[in-house]
């Protein structure tokens, strides 16, 4: 009886709607991550005056499939001296936490399908950005557990570096975000996008905060110049030195999913999310209708994210890796005070405005 009652109270349409949305968002994230590997190789090649992969299919667009297939057919090695359960758990956690971020990102405005108001956000929770933080900081567990379970000194060193790096930079990241939250007054990502649609983008109100956020995002995603946990030439791949086959693939893939989603978070926070720039949305809504507008907004969001992904790659192939002490100096002695200063200045300005100072 009791079970029946619970089942009856579930809104099945909502359930199916969210299920479809989850499948779409996760598969889109994975496809984008897959093609990011291709884009990375192409960008690297172009920056180094080469041509990049161009053999598999026209312009080499089947290259990620070939790479994936190769990884699938590689021998799956679990070292005999490893802690097996944790060894397998590591890549699972890395991938899981990477994908979980996608749940709170608003991918577009509401759509009208079959008389229902469908939100293009999997979960519009009112603490969206806190959720992102929680999940992102969980991401280090994947690396830490994988590196520790490998029972290999290089892996452990890489994992230690990852843990200390992510903790150091999360501080500056969080504090730079507090300044943003003081301005917006909300933790919900959907509301932030709404505010930016009506007013100016947050980048113009928080330029320094964005810069700090961007640098920390590079560190959080373990991208060059902060790729010390991997550091091919020092640590032979760092935390994933012992991994092979698809478990290695998951680690490498998680990095690209992270890159995609941190681009999405930065777009949502600072670049107006799915807002179409230079366009009056009310007019567009009138001419296009709700559904088409939502689709175009989603595409605009993707263009913005792609630009971020390109920026990540561009920087990777420009800037060499930091030394460990430089990394820590930058994090603790520069970014942290700078973000504190930014927070104080923002708070002071808000306070002065509230007291009717005009300047």
């Amino acid at each position, binding site marked *: 009886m009791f079970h029946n009652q619970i089942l009856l109270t579930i809104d099945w349409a909502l359930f199916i709607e969210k299920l479809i949305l989850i499948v779409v968002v996760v598969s889109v994230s994975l496809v984008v991550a897959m093609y990011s590997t291709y884009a990375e190789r192409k960008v690297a090649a172009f920056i180094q*005056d080469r041509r990049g992969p161009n053999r598999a299919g026209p312009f080499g667009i089947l290259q990620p499939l070939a790479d994936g297939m190769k990884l699938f057919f590689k021998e799956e090695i679990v070292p005999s001296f490893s802690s097996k359960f944790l060894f397998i758990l590591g890549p699972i956690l890395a991938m899981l936490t990477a994908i979980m971020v996608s749940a709170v990102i608003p991918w577009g405005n509401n759509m009208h399908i079959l008389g229902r108001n469908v939100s293009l956000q999997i979960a519009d929770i009112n603490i969206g950005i806190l959720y992102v933080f929680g999940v992102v900081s969980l991401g280090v567990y994947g690396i830490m557990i994988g590196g520790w379970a490998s029972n290999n000194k290089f892996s452990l060193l890489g994992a230690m570096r990852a843990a200390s790096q992510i903790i150091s930079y999360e501080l500056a990241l969080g504090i730079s975000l507090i300044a943003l939250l003081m301005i917006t007054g909300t933790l919900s990502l959907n509301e932030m996008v709404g505010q930016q649609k009506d007013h100016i983008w947050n980048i113009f109100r928080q330029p320094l905060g964005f810069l700090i956020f961007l640098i920390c995002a590079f560190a959080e995603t373990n991208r060059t110049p902060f790729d010390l946990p991997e550091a091919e030439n020092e640590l032979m791949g760092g935390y994933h030195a012992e991994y092979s086959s698809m478990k290695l693939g998951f680690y490498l893939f998680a990095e690209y999913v992270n890159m995609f989603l941190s681009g999405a978070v930065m777009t949502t926070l600072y670049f107006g999310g799915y807002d179409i720039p230079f366009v009056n949305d009310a007019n567009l809504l009138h001419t296009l209708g709700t559904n088409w507008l939502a689709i175009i907004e989603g595409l605009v969001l993707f263009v913005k994210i792609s630009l971020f992904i390109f920026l990540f790659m*561009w920087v990777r192939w*420009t800037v060499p890796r930091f030394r460990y002490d430089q990394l820590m100096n930058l994090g603790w002695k520069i970014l942290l005070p700078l973000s504190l200063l930014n927070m104080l200045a923002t708070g002071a300005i808000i306070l002065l405005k509230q007291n009717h100072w005009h300047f």
Partner: protein
Amino acid sequence: MEALTNRVKPVDRRKMSVWERMYLPAVFKGMAITIKHFFKKKATINYPEQTRPFSPVFRGLQVLNRDEEGRENCTACGLCALACPAEAITMECAERKPGEEHLYREEKYAAKYEINMLRCIFCGLCEEACPKDAVYLSETFAPANYQRKGFIYGKEDLLIPDPKTDPEGYAKAKGSRLQNPQGHGNEH
């Protein structure tokens, strides 16, 4: 201490200025350089589809020549093998039988003619040694092979196509040396 040469470059050990310690200007400068390279014309070409032209004096794979009537020039005199510094060439001679005049130009011919392309250094001394204009270096090179024995080229690999039955193949194999049958493309 006085420097022995004037090539000494003193190392700048001044402390970095505030501008330099910000790093970001330097990073942006680097990014400007990399994006410039991003749009540059690539130096590489798509090799199997596109090839770069060889120079007229390029010394490639050997070809055993025929005369205008399609008869083999080689008389198996062995001068090429003698001239070869890498000892890549071996041959066996045979006597021309009556009725084989349309196949071989003179009464002695090479029954077997092998060049080991792994030994060959493509110096072209065989071409210079040949008194009958029978062997010369073409404008292609030996393709890759999975086995060593695949690099030992016999007569069937080396012989030029018959100019009577396959004039196009003959012209192609002969390349630009068609105008200059003695070889040595730029001797003028």
